Each structure stands twice: as C-alpha cells, then as structure tokens.
C-alpha cells in the first residue's frame, strides 16, 4: 500500500498567500432530490419486470402447494380412511397422489424461484455497482476533492450490500408473509365473516405499530450508515498510511480514535436491534390481546348459539397462524429501512451532476497533421466556488508544436492553467480552444487523445508494471510498452524488478519509489502519444540522472507535439521553446529561454539562483 489516503494535488500554494482548498462536504451537503431513491429503484427493477413476475407466480404456486399439505392430510383422514375401510381405495389414492405431486412440485418450484430471483438480484446489483462506479468516474475533480474516497467506497460496497440483503432475503420474506396473510384472511372470512372482520381489524393497530417502528428505525438506520462510512474512512486511512502510523507510534491513539467511531457504530447497531425488540414485543402483545378478544367475543357468540363451536376452534388456531409472520415483517421493514437509507445515499451520489459535462453535440478535431495542436486561452477566468479568483481573465496562444515552460512561485496559477487545459475543471468565464475547437465541445475520448497530463502524483494501479504503462494506450503491444519505458529511462529499473515488467506493483508497490513511479507515469504518457502533453511537476521526485534522462527523452518525444511544462525547477526550461513567468494569475514575462535569461526580469534572477544550486 504505497498510496497515500489522499492523492497529491498540485494546488496553488505560495507561502505568502496560499490558496486554501475548498472545505470538505458533509454528507448532508449532497442534496438528494425528492423521489430520487424511488426512481432509482424503479429504474433498477424495470428491466427485470418479466422475470420478477415469473418469480412471483412461481412462489405463489409454490406456497399453495406447500400450504396444501395439512389440508390434504385432513382430507385423507376425513374421507380417504373411511372410504378405504369400505374397500374403496380411490379417494385415498387420489389424496396421496395429490400430496406426492405437491411435495414434488414444491421443491422444483422453490429451486426455480431461487435460481430466477438470484439472477435478477445479481443483475440489479451488477447494474447498480456499475452505475455508482461509472458515475463516480464521471464526476469532476472538484467533487472528488470534497467528497472523500472513503465515502465513495462505502457507497459502492456497504450501501450496495444493504440493498443486496433486501433483495436476496427481504423480498422473498415479504412475498411469503403476504401470501400466508391473504390465504388465512380468506379462510377466516369464509368461516364466519363477522368474526373474520373483527379478527382482520387487528391489522389497524398492527399497522400503527409498524408505522411507528418504521419512522423510528429510519433515523437509526441513517445514523448507522453514516457511522459505517466514517468507520470505513478511518480504517482505510490507517491501513494506507501504515508506515507513518508505525513510525510515529500512532497505534494507541488510533485505537482510541477507531474505538470512538466503532462505538458510534455499535450504538447505532444496538439502537436498531432495540427498535426491533420494541416492535416485536408491541406487535406480539397487540396480536395476543386481539386474539384473546376474538376468543371472548366468539365465546359469547357460541353461548348465544350465534356461532358453531368448531368454527371458533378453527378461528383461534388460525389467528395464531395469521399473526405469526408479523415478526418477519419486522425483519423485512428492517432490511428495507437499511436498504432505503443506503439507496438514498446512492441516489444522492448518482443525482450529483458532474460540473465538467460531456458535450451533447460533440465536435471533432480537425485531422492531426503530426505537428501537435494549437492551444488558445481566450479570456479564460477561473474562480473557486467560494468566489476566490485564481486566474483573472487570461489570454494565451500556444502554436502547434511549441514547448512552453511555465514558471512562477507556488500559487501563481500554473497548476490551474494546467488543470483547465486538461479539462479537469471548466473555466468560470471565457474558453480554451484546441485547434480552434472549444474543449467543452470535445467528447472525452477525443479530448484525451488530444491532451494528456502527467502530474506530480503518479498513482499506480494494481496490476503489473506493463499494465500500468499500457494504461496510456490500451492495446499497445509489449514491445511498445517496453520501448516507452526505454525512451524515458525506466527500462533498467523495471527489468530489475522481481518479475520485470510483469511485477505486480500492488504487491511490491512498497518497493517502487516515488521517482520510479514518476518514470512509469512518464512512460504511460509517452505511450498515450497525445498531441498536447502537459507536465505538471512531473519530475519532482526524480534524481538528477533520472531527470536528465527524461530531459534527453523529451527532446525527441516533444518533437511533433505541443507541450506545456510546469516546473518548480528550472532544469526543464532548457528544452522549452518559450518560457512564461506567471505571478498572481498573470503572465509577467514571455519569451525564449535565452531572451529571458539574458534579460533582467524575475526569470533571470530565478535562473541564476537555480544555476547556483547545481553542482
């Protein structure tokens, strides 16, 4: 685990007037549009309507087959045996045959139901996971900077799990409960409609109990999901930062901090369990009291000869069975509650529109002529949501093929320039054109073929080194991957890894140093072969030979493409055709490196200082 919990950002940050990042979002800051959870659920279930119907019919028939067992036994006793005594085996054979076919039908239907519903459930979960994942990928960096990774992870894992629980267990339970209630209700009404109505009236107070349970447990479950998310955040942060954790003896302090969120989660869990206990106790008491009332009423009716004794007996026994599944309802409400809370959060995430939107009518770039592409900033202004302006209206034209170095103190707006050009953000005002086409009109694949940015952060994904490089151009051959590594001077160290290019970086990620990761990131960018290459502090962790190898490679690599290089260190500037010195979002010097070095401006001073720092 070499990644930091939070990716490096090359945000503007000058000692004098450092730009501060936007504050993190609270869960509540992501508004959930009313009706969104329901709409999400409908859209997930919709495509499976046919299969869900089939599954429901199957369970309906299966329950009927299953419930008919006792009835058939009764028929056998009342009719079959007396008939057999009269040497008429017909009725008994018929009943036994019916019983055996029910007992064969029921498992077969059960089997079919499990198979179908599992398929539906899994398809829904697959779709939902995919949607969350793709949506999180689509959302802009401004969102990711505020919505922490742990939260997104818990959306895609524990929240989806809550829904899985509901789908795989809750729904089947609900169906069974529903069917048995219907079955018994009809029976009761058929036996005696007056007493039947009185009995069924019990569902009014029971519904009230269930409603109060629902509203109380909703709050608990929301709390429980929130605490689960902060638990996950704390956990991943610690595991990803295990080196500093151990080096700074954070174990005890972390134990305490984790215990706090853990305790919160335990309290929420226990509160949920207590709500269930309360519901089960209350509803059971209601049902039992009601049953007693029905027995008493029935008793009076029997005494008045208004009811047969046998009917009352049947009533009393069936009432127990009618109310038996109310606990199951609690379980259903319970998983429903937890799933609803999860669904709400997922819907909130999915409803969040990316600020950097895909164009509705994408425009294609003119055909590439192998010289790179021109870049034009036209009145481009960028301000944070807080209103703080980072880049005042800004004009810049970079002709195709030019290599531009941008220098300046931290916070001068260099990184913002790069992020706008890579369309990590959209400008607040004005536009950026690539070969005359507004970036906002380019479809993502087209844009990424045109512009690629290598950042200081060089995240490696799990997989082999070769796969990480090939990320630049999926489908690249092994030769191309190795050539890219060779071009950038990364070949030797990769080849020396335990399995060479096939070394799994996640397993041995701890061994790949920051500098080596930057080289891999460079190779990745080379392989992508973009028309415009942006390097944002891309050599910060390289040692001198490494940086020089990169510089040498750049001289050939940058031929035929436009490049914007942002560097704290001026070594990079030597390969540039043009240098821009930025200060507070404005270009204060602009010229060829030699012109600027020979001049008396800031760049000349910076350059002198840098020369001095060299050996």
């Amino acid at each position: 685990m070499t990644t930091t919990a939070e990716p490096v950002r090359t945000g503007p940050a000058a000692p004098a007037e450092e730009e501060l990042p936007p504050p993190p979002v609270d869960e509540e800051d992501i508004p959930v549009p009313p009706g969104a959870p329901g709409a999400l659920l409908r859209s997930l279930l919709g495509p499976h309507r046919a299969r869900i119907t089939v599954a429901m019919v199957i369970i309906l028939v299966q329950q009927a087959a299953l419930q008919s067992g006792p009835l058939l036994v009764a028929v056998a006793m009342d009719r079959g045996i007396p008939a057999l005594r009269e040497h008429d085996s017909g009725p008994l054979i018929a009943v036994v045959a019916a019983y055996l076919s029910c007992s064969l039908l029921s498992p077969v239907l059960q089997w079919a139901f499990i198979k179908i519903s599992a398929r539906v459930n899994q398809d829904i979960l697959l779709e939902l996971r995919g949607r969350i994942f793709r949506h999180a990928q689509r959302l802009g960096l401004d969102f990711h900077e505020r919505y922490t990774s742990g939260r997104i992870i818990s959306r895609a894992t524990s929240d989806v799990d809550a829904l899985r629980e509901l789908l795989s267990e809750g729904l089947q339970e609900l169906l069974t409960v529903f069917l048995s209630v219907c079955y018994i209700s009809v029976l009761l009404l058929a036996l005696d409609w007056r007493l039947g109505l009185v009995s069924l009236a019990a569902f009014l107070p029971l519904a009230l109990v269930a409603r109060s349970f629902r509203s109380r447990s909703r709050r608990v479950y929301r709390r429980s999901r929130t605490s689960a998310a902060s638990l996950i955040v704390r956990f991943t942060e610690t595991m990803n930062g295990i080196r500093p954790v151990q080096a700074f003896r954070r174990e005890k302090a972390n134990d305490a901090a984790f215990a706090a969120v853990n305790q919160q989660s335990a309290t929420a869990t226990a509160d949920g369990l207590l709500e269930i206990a309360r519901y089960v106790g209350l509803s059971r008491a209601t049902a039992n009291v009601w049953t007693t009332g029905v027995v008493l009423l029935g008793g009076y009716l029997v005494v008045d000869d208004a009811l047969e004794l046998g009917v009352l007996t049947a009533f009393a026994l069936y009432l127990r069975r009618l109310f038996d599944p109310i606990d199951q309802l609690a379980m259903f409400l319970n998983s429903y509650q937890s799933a609803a809370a999860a669904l709400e959060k997922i819907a909130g995430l999915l409803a969040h529109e990316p600020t950097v939107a895909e164009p509705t009518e994408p425009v294609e770039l003119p055909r590439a002529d192998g010289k790179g592409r021109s870049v034009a900033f036209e009145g481009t202004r960028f301000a944070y949501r807080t209103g703080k302006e980072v880049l005042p209206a800004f004009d810049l034209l970079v002709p195709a093929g030019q290599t531009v170095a941008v220098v300046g103190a931290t916070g001068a707006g260099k990184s913002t320039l790069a992020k706008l050009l890579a369309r990590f953000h959209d400008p607040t005002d004005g536009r950026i054109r690539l070969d005359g086409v507004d970036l906002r009109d380019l479809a993502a694949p087209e844009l990424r073929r045109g512009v690629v940015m290598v950042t200081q952060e060089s995240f490696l994904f799990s997989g082999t080194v070769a796969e990480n490089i090939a990320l630049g151009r999926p489908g690249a051959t092994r030769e191309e991957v190795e050539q890219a590594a060779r071009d950038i001077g990364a070949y030797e160290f990769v080849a020396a890894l335990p399995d060479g290019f096939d070394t799994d970086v996640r397993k041995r990620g701890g061994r790949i140093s920051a500098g080596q990761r930057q080289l891999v990131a460079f190779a990745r960018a080379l392989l992508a072969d973009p028309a415009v290459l942006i390097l944002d502090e891309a050599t910060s962790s390289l040692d001198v030979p490494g940086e020089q190898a990169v510089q040498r490679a750049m001289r050939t690599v940058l031929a035929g493409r436009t490049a914007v290089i942002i560097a704290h260190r001026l070594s990079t500037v030597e390969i540039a055709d043009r240098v821009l010195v930025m200060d507070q979002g404005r270009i204060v010097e602009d010229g060829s490196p030699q012109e600027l070095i020979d001049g008396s401006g800031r760049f000349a001073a910076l350059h002198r200082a840098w020369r001095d720092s060299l050996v």
Partner: protein
Amino acid sequence: MAENRQDPENPPRTSPRSDGPEGTGRTDEPDAAAPAGSGPRRSAVRSLLRLWPYARAVRGRLAVSVTAATLAMLSTLAVPVVLGRIVDGPLAERDLDGLWPLVGLLLLLGLVESALFYTRRVVLARPLAGLETAMRGDLFAKLQRLPVSFHDRWGSGQLLSRATADMYTMRLFLAFPLVFLIVNSVMFLAGAVLMFTQDWRLALITLAPVVPLFVATRRFERGYSGATRLAQDQNGDLATVVEESVLGIRVLKAFGRHRSMAERFRVQSQELRRTELRKAHLLANLWAITVGLPEVALGCALAVGAYLVAHDGLSAGTLVAFLSTALALRWPIESLGWLLAYGNDAATATDRFFEVLDEPEAPGTDTPAPGTATGPGARDGIRFTGVRFRYPDAPEDGPDLLAGIDLHVRSGETMALVGATGSGKTTLTALLPRLYEATAGTITLDGRDIRELPPRQLRELVAVAFEEPTLFSATVRENVLMGAPGAGEEQLRTALATAQAGFVEKLPQGADTEVGEQGLSLSGGQRQRLALARAVVGDPDFLVLDDPLSALDVHTEALVERALREVLGTTTALVVAHRPSTVLLADRVAVLADGRIAAVGTHQELLRDCAHYRELMSGEAAPVPEGALVSKGGRA
C-alpha cells in the same frame, strides 16, 4: 413455531455447558466446549469455535436470553392447551362465568409471551453490538501492529471487507442461526422419539430422508464454503478497484481511462456475480432436496399409515397425532440447509478474521547480535554493521537489495544518503525504525542494538519524514505533534516555522483545522511541509528524512533548508537526497550502490573522487570543472 425463522436478531447460543449437546464438544480448543452441536459440520465447527472467547463475555446475558426464549416457547405451546380447555369446558357447558378466568389466563399468557420476546432481544442488543465492536477493534489494533511487509501483501480492500461485511456475518450468526441450530435439533430429537413411540414403521419412513439429507448437506457444505470464500475475496477485490479508481482519479481523468477502469470493474463484478449465482445454484439444489425429500417421505407415510389404519388396526387418532408431529418437524428439517449456509458464511468469515489475527506481529525483542555494540549510552550515533536485507518475496536467485551495509553516522552529524533510483535508500531508512527487519547484521543507536529497544521507544527516538507525506484525519496540531507526544504549543510553533508551514495560520481554524480524508485537502507541498514539521517537532535524537523537499518550489525549498540547518545542527540525521541542494544540508555524504555503501565523504571529496557520485549529482560521468561548486548561501 411462533418464533419464526426469519429472525436474524435472535440471541445467540445457549451456555454451552448447560444445553449444547455436550457430546459434540470435541475439539482442539482445550477450553471451549462446543457451543453449537447439530449438523454435519466439521471444519466449520472448528472455525466457529474460535469465536468463543468473544462470546464468552456476554454469556450471562446469553443465558437470560435463552431462558426467555425457552419460556416463550413454553407459553406458546400452552396457548392451544388453554384454548382446548375453553372449548371443552365453559363453551361446551355454556358457562359464561367459567369463560372469564380462562380468557384471563389466555390474555396473561399472551402478554407474558410478548414480554419474553421483548426481553430475549433487549438483553442482547447492546452486548451483541459490543461483541462486533470488540472484534473489529481487535482486528484494527492487530492490523496496526502487523509489520509493513504484511500490508505490502494485503490490499486494503481485503482488510476492509474483513472489518465490515465479515463482522456483520459473524454477529448475525451468533444472533440467530446458531440458536436455531440448537432449538431445532432439540425439537428434532424430541419429535423423533415421539414418533417412534407412536408407530415405529411410520417413524422409519418419515426419518429415512435424514441420511440422504446428511450426505447432501455435507456435499453442499464443501462446495458452498469454497464459493462463499471466493465471493468474499472477490468482494474485497472489488472494493480495492473502487478504492484505486477514486484515489487514482486524476490519472484516470488525465488519460481518459474511465472506460477501461470501468471495464475492469465490470469484469470483476461479473466474476462476483458468477460466484453469487453459483452460491444460489448450490443453495437452490439444497433447498430442493431439503424441502422435497421430507415431503415425499411424509406422503409415503400418509399412504402407508392410511393403509395400516384400514387393515392393521392402527388407530386413526394415532395416525393424526403422528402426522401432526411429522408436520411440526418439517420446519426443523427444512431449516437445516440454510442454517448451515449461514454457519458456513460465518465460518468463512471467522477464518478470514483469524487469518489476520494469527499473523505474527512485528518481532519483539530479539537477542542482539553480540560483540557489535559499544557500551550503552555512548554518544555513538547511528551505526550499520553488515546490514543485509531482501524482501521476503524477492526472487530466490536475485542478490540481496542491501548486501552488507557498513555505515557510521556520528552523533550530531547529518549524513546524506545518495544513490541511484531503486538502489535501496528508502529501504535502508525504513530499517532504522524497524518498519522492516534487517535480514542480517546489526543497527545500533548510540551503541544500543535497535532490536534491544522496545519498538515504541525506538520509534520515539527516531523521527521520520516519509517520501509520501501522509496526513491523518485530525487537526494540523495533532498531525504535527504526533511526532512528539507531550510537546507543547512552543514546539509546535517552532516545528511549523522550521518547515515554513506558515500557511497553517491562514487555515480556517489555524492549527486546529481538520486535515486529511475527513478534513481540508492540502496540496502536496503543504502536506510535505507538515510531514517535515512532524518529523522535527520536539527535537528528536535521530532524524530520518526521505527526500523531504521534493514537492517544494525553489523559493520555499531554500527557506526550509535554511531553517533545517539549525535543527540538523543538534541531531543525528540520515537524509535521503536526490539533489545537490539537499545534499548540501549534510556534513557528509554516503553513496549507496549495489547494496553497499560505495563511498563516504564530504560533498566536495566525493565530487572529486567518486565518479558515480558525480554522475548522480550532475547527471554527467565526466569530471566537473573547477568553480562549478558555488555555495548557495547567497541565494534565497
């Protein structure tokens, strides 16, 4: 059964000694009797037994809960008896006065039953949540103390799924399937005995399916536990992909690779889907058998019974009683399958949990290699003697990454460590606070072998600033002061000043601003400066800085260097350096090449004498012309 089956929050086991079938308490765990006794479980039982130490703490409450459950069952059974009395007595005799006491009894029974239901759950709600918390806390504590090499091997997604989904599975098992395994097997045994006393022929027919069911569930268990384990692992892998896709979002955006990442996610989640469907398939088969076989047997019993009644003098009443008993046993038999499935899930989760807990922790105090240490307390600085290191998963035939390091950093001296990319500089520094253990050789701090020091004390002596400046979800103050617990405001200010972290004052709440995952996201340079402040706070005796200035711009770097000089003047420091400017912080420089220290000397000496060093510093193997060595004091 009034206590119906979908009852996941039921209380866990009974006290194992009181009513778990004692005979099944075989095991290798000397002090744990078998808490659950039914069903053909082998390894799963053994796995689950390991949960006992946690369940132990709540056994009193468990006993209360089990008593409540038993009483509730009794009162449930008493209800039909009372109803029978009402029908046979007052109603048959039209005696309204006699009706009231019995109805009163019925009401009482109903209220007692619901109160018992309530009690059973209430006594366990907090203890069970507490049990889950305790296990999770232990897992977290253990993970924090496992060596870094363990974390190198395990994806954090895998660890996370152990801390969340698996914990839930285990709690659920303790809460519910376990108790029904007990209740149902008791019911089954009692019912079987009852049936044999009623009619042995019918009993044999009805119970015949038990043998094939036993075989089927055993076979099921084997297939299902494999699938469960696979599903849990795949879930963990999926979590890892999500995590990476979020952490690496900038790279993905920069290359427009959402689609290939989404494709990878899709492939993995489809694999998970396949496994889940395989589980469902196995479960469906088991269900079909557990539901079907007893039913068929019952149908046969019905036919034979009816024949016996007609021809062989079996009384109709006995047959009715027998069939009612058999029908009542339907649920205990049917439930076996999915209770076992729960048990398997829980057993797998337990295995995964203990897989981590059983890992050996970072070794404690080994005996130090004799003869290498100078007397304790001597101001000897840092001394590496014959230190070798190779990663445990390095290829057999490859050379050691560190192949005999001999290096002495004198007390109070600052030593720069220079070497080509991948030469092992960072690894070497990680050996000092024992994040990794040297495979051979000795490292001493002021003459004391680092293996003699308790890790806590060692890490108090050695402060580190890592290449990756990781901040935690805490305030700036906490993040910095974690380097020196007990340090005060003064030290905090000094450390922040040294690291040129003046931006802290401009944060919304100053040093009390939350940063990290749950707080403000700082830039790389800002985080690096805080990480540096954390290392230098409280004047550590030994300081390790791994390329501490890489993310800083030239201007800030110069300011930090100037301030660092003062700190470095009083401590013994090892500084990994990539650039000349960082090297100039050091008194002497050590060159690491091919796993050994190739040369030690001052910057100038090495420039003169060591070609490799010249190459590292200037990128050129050729000698550097005189006069290129300009002091950089006048800059900034």
